């Protein structure tokens, strides 16, 4: 066993593999599959102030080596998340390291949600989603405008002492600029990539395959884009980087680590195989052993050219 302990600033994970927000529910849905505490962290689906319906259906469409989704951040709202049995209290009991993904319809709401989470037992960090392409208000607007991104993160920073991860949108000309500005605003680290904006049309009905018209592309199709962006961002900022986008296997995860990610998140792959994160943890360990590495930190950013 190589040492998989992963330090992301003040946050220490038992291994570098977490679940990507929105693909692992609130953890409870997978609790029968394996102990949630075996994961580096559980990142829950995006939480905003009030309960929200999400988008009309159909919300997903399958495409080559990937999928489009426009779930639209259906969720229970802060109160229910903090107190409802199947949400945070369950995660607390499970022993999982829990990262809460948050979003808001306004800058104020972002700060409000962050404040509500501050100091709550069982929350290890917040991931601020400024990059969801599937909600009308909030979401991506904050993630594709440098000034807005900086403002949102500054306000969230002021509202909480929790470690802050900013989740970046790939739908921009230069993602490294966004990484820099949110770090300037006080983000302790960054995670990327969220989904790429996409669309699919049913040529028989001539309707968009997703009721929301456009959706976010995830899965293996986006891996090369994600690797490139993680590589760019890791060079641009000095904070920990959490890489994701199309990770299906340990080999994929290792590719992100070599590109400069300090940890990774597994998303769509969970739909293919709920055990994917566990297999990936095991696979990383095997790779390290085979390459004579004592710890995962030895391969971070070690792409050579």
């Amino acid at each position, binding site marked *: 066993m190589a040492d998989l302990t992963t330090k992301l600033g003040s946050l220490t994970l038992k291994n570098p593999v977490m679940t990507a927000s929105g693909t692992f529910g609130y953890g409870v*849905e997978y609790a029968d599959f394996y102990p949630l505490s075996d994961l580096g962290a559980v990142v829950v689906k995006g939480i905003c102030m009030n309960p929200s*319906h999400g988008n009309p*259906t*159909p919300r*997903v469409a*399958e495409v080559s080596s990937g*999928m489009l989704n426009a*779930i639209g951040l259906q969720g229970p709202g802060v109160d229910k998340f903090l107190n409802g049995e199947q949400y945070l209290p369950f995660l607390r009991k499970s022993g999982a390291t829990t990262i809460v993904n948050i979003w808001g319809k306004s800058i104020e709401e972002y700060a409000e949600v962050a404040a509500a989470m501050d100091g709550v037992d069982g929350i290890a960090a917040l991931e601020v989603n400024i990059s969801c392409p599937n909600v009308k208000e909030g979401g991506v607007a904050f993630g594709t405008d440098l000034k807005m991104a900086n403002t949102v993160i500054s306000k969230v920073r002021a509202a909480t002492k929790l470690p802050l991860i900013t989740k970046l949108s790939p739908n921009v000309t230069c993602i490294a600029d966004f990484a820099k500005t949110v770090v300037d605003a006080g983000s302790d680290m960054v995670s990327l990539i969220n989904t790429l904006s996409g669309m699919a049309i049913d040529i028989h009905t001539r309707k968009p395959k997703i009721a929301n018209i456009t959706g976010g592309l995830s899965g293996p199709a986006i891996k090369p884009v994600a690797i490139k962006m993680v590589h760019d961002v890791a060079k641009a900022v000095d904070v920990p980087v959490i890489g994701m986008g199309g990770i*299906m296997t340990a080999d994929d995860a290792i590719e992100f680590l070599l590109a400069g990610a300090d940890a990774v998140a597994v998303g769509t792959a969970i739909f293919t*195989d709920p055990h994917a994160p566990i297999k990936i943890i095991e696979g990383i360990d095997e790779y390290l052993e085979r390459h004579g590495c004592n710890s995962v930190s030895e391969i971070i950013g070690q792409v050579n050219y």
Partner: protein
Amino acid sequence: MPEVGEILKNEVLKGDYYKVVFYVPEICKNTKPGQFVHVKIANLRDRILRRPFSICDVDVETGELTVAYKIVGEGTKVLATLEVGTVCDLMGPLGVSFTPTKDDEFPVIVAGGYGSAATHILAKQCVTKGVLLLGARSEDDLILMDKFEEANFEVRLSTNDGSVGHQGLVTELVEQIIAENTDNKKLRFYGCGPTPMLMALGKMLEDKGYECELSLDHLMCCGVGACFACVVKVKANNEDGWRYARTCNEGPVFNSKDVYYG
């Protein structure tokens, strides 16, 4: 919960309908009527999602699980080409199940399309034998009638084009059944099929005050309640009067009184 399932049989049922038998003893043991398996179809390398299929039959002794499927797209097309011995990964049994009838109830199963597959185990488990009302566009889409007859169910058919049985909608057969029920048997309804049919059925029975369970489904990703892809509207105690419920783990079977028809 995921189980590796070797294909023991994979053959045409009728037209575009096929039947595949997997060896998955663990899933068989736990299956209740109306539940489904979530199948990672082998060889479908460019499609990453599983496909949900109702469990049509299980044999707990032999560990054989049967799915009846129709070729409708890439996944089912590839599934139909898989040879005996090929292995697929199955998750299951998943979802909320139907409640079989009790002694004093008379079961009426209303099914369309692959709905007969989803309700076959239900028919086998109902202690009182009832009737299957099976509707489809045309004769080509009616399957598994023999299986229901084996389960001692009376089978009545309807087709839109009149190619066999009653010409018209299956809900018209429901009205027939209700009209025929002069001795006031306690009818209990079960619906499984296309959403518009289920909505019509549910609303009609709600108005008439009958017990009814509907199997509502929608495009699925995770199959276990984690992604919120598969939702339908159910009644809720909020200002809108509805919320989106996940058909994979809050359903697919819902009490028709809980469904939001608005």
